[in-house]
């Protein structure tokens, strides 16, 4: 599990995260939600030691992220950032191949190739594997970056808005496959999603951040309801139940509640 205790973060004097403590359980999908600027990406990059911790402590299965050797951590935890680009000119297969670097340090074995194959397969990238990244559409590129992170084959996978740019089919497919991977191999995914209904349908746990603080944490039913969403997003959202999951009708303003 990932234990975050008393984490605070400031950038240029402005408080970005404020005494955040929470535990992300091992196995399953945890969704991180909250308005723009709530601090979701900041929290993920602190967990993944991309940004040095200023205050507090974060451990991944007991390993402190600031003191654990970075290459050992890379075999335990991987991260997809919100905005991805690489300067180098790479093919999809090469990019995904880099996901294996923490394991082979430059000399890929047949086993590494097999993991790359599997990740390409999982993201439906086989027909595109020889293409250069700058020859792909936005959604195709997004899938390539997700495939790279999946090829890293870590117990913990942090995905910052993995559904960015994806069409409906690929968005649903990705969530289904992550759920499946969590079920079959016990992996833990921490996912930032803006479409609350994906969180409601696929997450085991939802964590809501607001203004750099932990707002609330609970099952989809506990978080995806009208009062809670109104509090987190400052938006009135009608919530129905569809197929056993709460389903937020966030695209349209709801009928005002009838005063009694």
């Amino acid at each position, binding site marked *: 599990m990932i234990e975050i205790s008393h984490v605070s973060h400031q950038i240029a004097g402005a408080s970005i995260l404020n005494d955040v403590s929470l535990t992300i359980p091992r196995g399953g999908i945890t969704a991180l939600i909250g308005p723009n600027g709530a601090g979701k990406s900041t929290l993920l990059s602190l967990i993944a030691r991309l940004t040095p911790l200023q205050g507090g402590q974060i451990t991944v299965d007991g390993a402190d992220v600031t003191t654990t050797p970075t290459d050992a951590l890379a075999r335990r935890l991987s991260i997809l950032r919100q905005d991805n*680009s690489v*300067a*180098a000119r790479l*093919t999809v297969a090469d990019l995904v191949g880099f996901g294996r670097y923490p394991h082979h340090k430059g000399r*890929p074995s047949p086993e590494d190739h*097999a993991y790359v194959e599997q990740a390409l397969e999982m993201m439906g990238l086989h027909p595109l594997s020889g293409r250069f990244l700058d020859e792909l559409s936005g959604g195709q590129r997004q899938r390539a970056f997700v495939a790279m992170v999946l090829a890293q084959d870590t117990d913990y996978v942090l995905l910052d808005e993995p559904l960015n740019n994806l069409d409906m089919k690929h968005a649903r497919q990705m969530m289904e496959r992550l759920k499946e991977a969590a079920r079959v191999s016990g992996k833990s995914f921490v996912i930032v999603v803006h479409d609350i209904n994906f969180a409601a349908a696929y997450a085991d746990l939802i964590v809501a951040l607001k203004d750099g603080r932990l707002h609330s944490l609970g099952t989809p039913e506990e978080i995806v309801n009208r009062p809670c969403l109104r509090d987190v997003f400052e938006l009135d959202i009608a919530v129905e139940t569809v197929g056993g999951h709460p389903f937020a009708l966030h695209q349209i303003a709801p009928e005002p509640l009838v005063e009694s």
Partner: protein
Amino acid sequence: MPSDSTASLPFPSQRAMQVKPLVILAVLALVAVALFLTLGVPAGAWEFALSFRAGKLAGLILVAFAIATSTQLFHAATRNQILTPSIMGFDALYLMIQTSLVFGMGAMATLDIDPMVKFASEVLVMMGFSTALFLWLFTARSRDLHLLVLVGIIFGTLFRSLSNFISRMIDPNEFVVVQGAMFARFNAVNIDLLWISIGLTALTLPVLWHMRHQFDVLALGRETAIGLGLRYRRVMFAAFGMIGLLVSVSTALVGPVTFFGLLVVHLAYRILPGARFAPTLLASSLIAIITLVGGQAIYEHVLGLQGTLSVVIDALGGITFLYLLLKGVRR
């Protein structure tokens, strides 16, 4: 958990595709070397000409390697393919260090020091400066490339002006000592420093070989590299340390050449698209050797011209730079 097949992956075939261009480049480089050694040697003067030219040849090859390598390391470390150490004023920094030394100690004193010791200490100072300066510039979160281009040009101008300024304050007699270093001159390689330059450059080879995969990861950018477990700061230090050393070596041997690195490295990127650090480095070094050695052979021994090659090369490189800027700086 992974499934079976490995055959369909593009890795082996990509390697095969790289062999042919590399072999062709190697053959061309050999031809350039042969031309340089043999063109226009008067009958009966073989022994003298060969021994004289061999030293110069070694110098040119060293410069070719140093410029190609430092440029490519710089590109990997800074996530851009437009700026190069010399565009960022690295060579001017070296000249500034050199001029300051003459200014501080007086030309006579600098002449008294063993040139090896002097050179080695200049290289050390340069490595220190370059790591400090560029770690400060580049380890921060990814910066806007246009801003970096601007900063680089300002730095380059600053270093050049400072070293000019210092050299004005130097006694005219002492100025002669540094003046020679300020202009590129492929026809007059500084042979005195050849051995120590070979030694210093040789130091980078095992490091380059050992870290070649790490430079591939470095080129993915800071966050991705750290996510893949790269010891980012250490690799950046190694990269900028070597850049400082290699720029010192090439500037000491032939003087500053602004756009040459950009030219050869971009040709290599074109010839081996999407290739890894090591094969690309091989290609860019070979291209640099072909251009420098071959060009110098034709200039000196066929056209009988002296010292104008650097102008031609810089003009070509400058056009490349403009082309890349106009094409749109995506990276």
